[in-house]
């Protein structure tokens, strides 16, 4: 479990995408915090290059405005914490510099890999976040990296459960055992993405509630909710508009049982902005808020 007092509960937030700028200008009260993907605010010239991170002025100007009015949390894409033989300390330094600047309340990464070092230097990108095998050596590798992240950035650090399609056979641990062991040391928390759980349930026939029951829910500090759709007959985590009924049911099932929950974040892909529109976004946030407010901890306060 994380040391207490490292962050206080925020409520309901949204994962920022550029289509949301107008919505947030007009409806800031709809959210208690905003989650941002820092990698989308800069261009990265690659490891070892001088002036590696070039911020995109227009985007950062908006972020500076946002940071004046709402707490920020960070949801990173670029660390690729599961990559074998690659841990990018320059990237960690960049995140640390952003922490000094924006004082984000917590930050998270995906428990996966996308970056692959290539022989002779440089790297290749897998083009999508691929799952890591739940093996002891991977647990040890990621645990050591989590410690480095915690040392560099004095804010809670969370890892997000995976969505996976082709399943890796003969893993040494179940996903829940791997997550519990990773969080047990207290160095990281869990970002529980309920849509990932739902997607895995649809595609692999796992019981979503049994999955949740097997987790140490004290480690869950943030919950992600989202929608998806079918591509070629397979349900995907595409963030396609509103959350399905099953995700709301899972949120209701878990919300009151996560004693250290700091926030519920709604995420959708910007290409679905027109489908959702302002009322649709408000409706998703409103529903999440209703569930957030059923939490016993909120009644006590």
């Amino acid at each position: 479990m994380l040391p207490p007092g490292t962050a206080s509960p925020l409520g309901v937030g949204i994962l920022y995408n550029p289509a949301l700028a107008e919505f947030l200008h007009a409806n800031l009260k709809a959210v208690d915090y905003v989650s941002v993907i820092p990698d989308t605010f800069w261009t990265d010239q690659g490891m070892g290059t001088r002036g590696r991170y070039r911020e995109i002025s227009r985007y950062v100007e908006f972020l500076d405005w946002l940071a004046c009015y709402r707490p920020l949390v960070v949801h990173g894409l670029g660390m690729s914490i599961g990559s074998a033989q690659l841990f990018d300390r320059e990237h960690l330094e960049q995140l640390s510099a952003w922490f000094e600047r924006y004082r984000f309340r917590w930050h998270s990464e995906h428990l996966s890999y996308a970056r692959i070092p290539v022989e002779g230097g440089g790297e290749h990108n897998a083009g999508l976040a691929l799952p890591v095998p739940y093996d002891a050596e991977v647990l040890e590798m990621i645990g050591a990296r989590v410690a480095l992240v915690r040392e560099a950035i004095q804010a809670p650090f969370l890892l997000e459960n995976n969505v996976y399609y082709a399943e890796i056979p003969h893993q040494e641990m179940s996903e829940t055992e791997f997550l519990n062991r990773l969080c047990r040391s207290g160095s990281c928390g869990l970002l529980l993405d309920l849509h990932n759980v739902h997607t895995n349930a649809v595609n692999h026939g796992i019981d979503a509630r049994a999955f949740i029951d097997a987790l140490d829910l004290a480690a869950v500090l943030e919950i992600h909710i989202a929608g998806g759709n079918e591509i070629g007959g397979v349900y995907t985590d595409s963030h396609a508009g509103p959350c399905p009924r099953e995700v709301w049911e899972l949120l209701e099932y878990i919300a009151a049982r996560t004693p250290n929950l700091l926030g519920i974040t709604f995420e959708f892909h910007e290409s679905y902005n027109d489908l959702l529109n302002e009322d649709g976004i408000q409706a998703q946030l409103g529903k999440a808020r209703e569930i957030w407010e059923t939490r016993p901890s909120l009644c006590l306060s």
Partner: protein
Amino acid sequence: MGDASELMSLLAFQRALADFAASPNLCREAIADPVPVLDRYDLSPRERFRLASMVRDPLMETNCVLYRVNRVTPIYVFFPLTCHVLGPDLRGELDVFWSTCAAVDLQYLPETERFAGFLRNRARRGELKNSFVEETVEYESTITALRFAARDSDPLLRIVKFLHDPAVLLEVAARGGIIPEDIPQGEYWVLLDASGPDLTVSRLTLEAVSKLRSCHSRDPESAGSHSRVTGFTDHDVLH
């Protein structure tokens, strides 16, 4: 942090899995005969077994689809008009692009720059026969560059040359219509201005372009079909 040989095998496993996601053809090859494909990677017996099993999993195809969705997204976001102008050729062009240019990173700006460079080269070599693509690519890559430009570095003005009337071409492409072959041809220039809160696009008079040629240090044509510019007045543009 794990035994070195285990981590080397993990690296080989991750590299192979990424290669499969990027290439349905490689998946098919491995399904037909896994040994020669898996021999290309320094895998432990367990990793070989895992990959041989995963490549047969019907859901491996979803990884391949998502790889393509993720790579097409920045292209579609920043080059919607080019995608439309390419029409039914788009799919084939993307296939060639992805088979010749593996993902180095998935950042929007470099990925779109690579795609723009790819299309320019294909058009110049005559491998892409489409009269409108080059100017549309130039227009949208200039807009993208302005979107990502530092506000305090350059004047946020660019001009782009068209060989077809941009008022017709861009309007038809933007509303998703069929691009007519009889769009008026000639020399047209548009001014892109990102110095304000929103990007504005105006057509330049040929007089303004002449003025530019005489006073600007770089000839716009010698600099390519788009250039950085300064010193325009409102009289120089056709709104």
